[in-house]
């Protein structure tokens, strides 16, 4: 069944050649009814839904390929190893890293940041040194650095943001000094939607010989990312935010940097040889992958990347931008809606507040109409403080969302007002 609104998307977007109704059929969860109404899933910044191809790939792995990887001489182990390692190459190609060994599998963005803090940070950050982040980081790109700085007697410095939610670029040169040992910044803010000029910041940092980690958790599913073009030193993302499973993520690191830093955790697989006198570490990336990894997760991630590429990230970015424009126009037409984060370069995500009504109540009421949004501080309390709000409502879109769903959101917001009339 094709709703008229979906057709409308279709017509306007003929040149984009994205067939939303076709795409929606690939995501089994989207047919779910919530309290008797069709699910309107607008919480994609928290986690994305999974296409059937990902779900089936994970099933197939467990049904016919499951074995522990590496060092196995039997058939299944070789198959599993091959499947797992082929995803490393897929990820390499996806973000255009130079070599597969620059791709480290981790649990997610959070673990990737912690890994860099505990390895690179441990040997490079000392008393009086500084780590530079931005005022719009997710807690996972704040707390690991705070912990490191506290331990080392170093200082955490912060690039401020404007009222529109953009980084104050002019402040960056002054915040970079000989004491700065690392810059760690988000590519796209999960609380504001701002797309940051990371390439520019990387250039400024590199002029001073400072490496840069980019938190790509919100970026990879929504725009093409090329780590060589960005020239970043580390890049982190989570599988579950790019239509893959939870529990798998990626840390990209420049090979020479990864080689220079110590291992993260100790255990099996990360060693070349062990005696009680001395252990020699394995080469990269295995040096950072102690223990049995999330094999099924990596394989599922591979299927997710295949899916995204079959749709095409350029098309995805254009379609989502169209959704963002549509939603922004609709929400801006109400005087009682305040949109937080109005940067000109934005991902398809809108943080907003309904005047006089707490986001938590908005979320509960929207849920009655099948609309799933996130309400709260979005793990970015400093952003909430910066804008003087305790929390926001966040609607975040993916390419399977439609303008019809945005209409449902707007209509349900009317119901919220009615309750509080």
């Amino acid at each position: 069944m094709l709703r008229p609104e979906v057709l409308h998307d279709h017509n306007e977007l003929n040149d984009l050649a994205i067939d939303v109704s076709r795409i929606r059929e690939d995501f089994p969860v989207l047919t779910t009814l919530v309290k008797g109404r069709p699910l309107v899933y607008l919480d994609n910044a928290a986690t994305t839904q999974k296409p059937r191809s990902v779900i089936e790939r994970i099933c197939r792995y467990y049904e016919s390929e499951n074995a522990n990887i590496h060092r196995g001489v039997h058939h299944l182990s070789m198959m599993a190893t091959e499947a797992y390692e082929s995803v490393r190459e897929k990820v390499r190609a996806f973000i255009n890293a130079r070599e597969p060994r620059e791709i480290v599998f981790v649990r997610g963005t959070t673990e990737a940041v912690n890994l860099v803090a505990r390895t690179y940070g441990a040997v490079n950050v000392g008393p009086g040194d500084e780590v530079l982040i931005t005022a719009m980081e997710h807690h996972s790109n704040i707390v690991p650095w705070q912990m490191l700085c506290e331990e080392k007697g170093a200082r955490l410095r912060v690039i401020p943001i404007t009222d529109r939610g953009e980084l104050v670029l002019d402040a960056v040169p002054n915040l970079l000094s000989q004491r700065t040992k690392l810059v760690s910044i988000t590519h796209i803010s999960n609380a504001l939607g701002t797309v940051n000029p990371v390439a520019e910041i990387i250039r400024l940092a590199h002029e001073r010989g400072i490496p840069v980690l980019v938190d790509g958790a919100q970026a990879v599913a929504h725009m093409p990312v090329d780590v060589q073009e960005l020239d970043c030193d580390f890049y982190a993302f989570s599988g579950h935010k790019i239509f893959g499973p939870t529990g798998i993520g990626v840390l990209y690191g420049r090979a020479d940097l990864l080689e220079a830093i110590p291992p993260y955790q100790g255990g099996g697989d990360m060693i070349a040889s062990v005696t009680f006198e001395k252990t020699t570490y394995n080469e990269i990336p295995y040096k950072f992958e102690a223990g049995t990894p999330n094999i099924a997760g990596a394989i599922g991630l591979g299927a997710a990347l295949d899916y995204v590429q079959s749709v095409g990230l350029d098309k995805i970015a254009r379609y989502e931008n169209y959704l963002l424009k549509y939603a922004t126009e609709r929400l801006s037409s109400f005087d009682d809606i305040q949109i937080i984060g109005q940067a000109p370069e934005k991902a398809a995500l809108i943080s907003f507040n309904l005047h006089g009504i707490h986001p938590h109540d908005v979320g509960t009421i929207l849920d009655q109409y099948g609309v799933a949004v996130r309400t709260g501080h979005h793990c970015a309390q400093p952003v909430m403080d910066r804008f003087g709000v305790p929390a926001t409502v966040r609607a975040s879109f993916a390419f399977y969302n439609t303008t019809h769903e945005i209409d449902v959101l707007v209509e349900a917001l009317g119901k919220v007002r009615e309750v509080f009339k």
Partner: protein
Amino acid sequence: MTASPDLRELYQEVIIDHTKRPRNFRRLDNADRKAHGVNPLCGDKVEVFVKMNGDVIDEVTFHGAGCSISTASASLMTQVLKGKTLAEAREIFEKFHDLVTGKAKDPDFQKKLGKLLVFSGVCEYPVRVKCATLPWHTLKAALEGEAEKTVSTE
């Protein structure tokens, strides 16, 4: 899109009224007990101030920013507890807790809750239970102890 009937059970008129015009919403300068409560999940913050007269709650007020459920819960709590003894307050909290966690479906029992009964809809919304109990946990912390205490419902 028709208004969902369930919603009215959660957001009863009395709750909306107390959200818009919270009672006893002020800091109490001469409080002899106070505590600070936060719900880390949603960032709700509430401060509860109590002035005792012997064993009796002479005055109780609150301040802070929260959602409708937590604001109305705090507001009604201050109304219900004024003039109650510590033992009575403790008993009311227990009953209220049973109500919002769905353990008190018995109508006879519910009658004893008086106007707090407007929170009977909360038990259908598990993630909102903490909103309703935050002011009460904070009050309990104030009554039980240190002059200033931070409680978290987590």
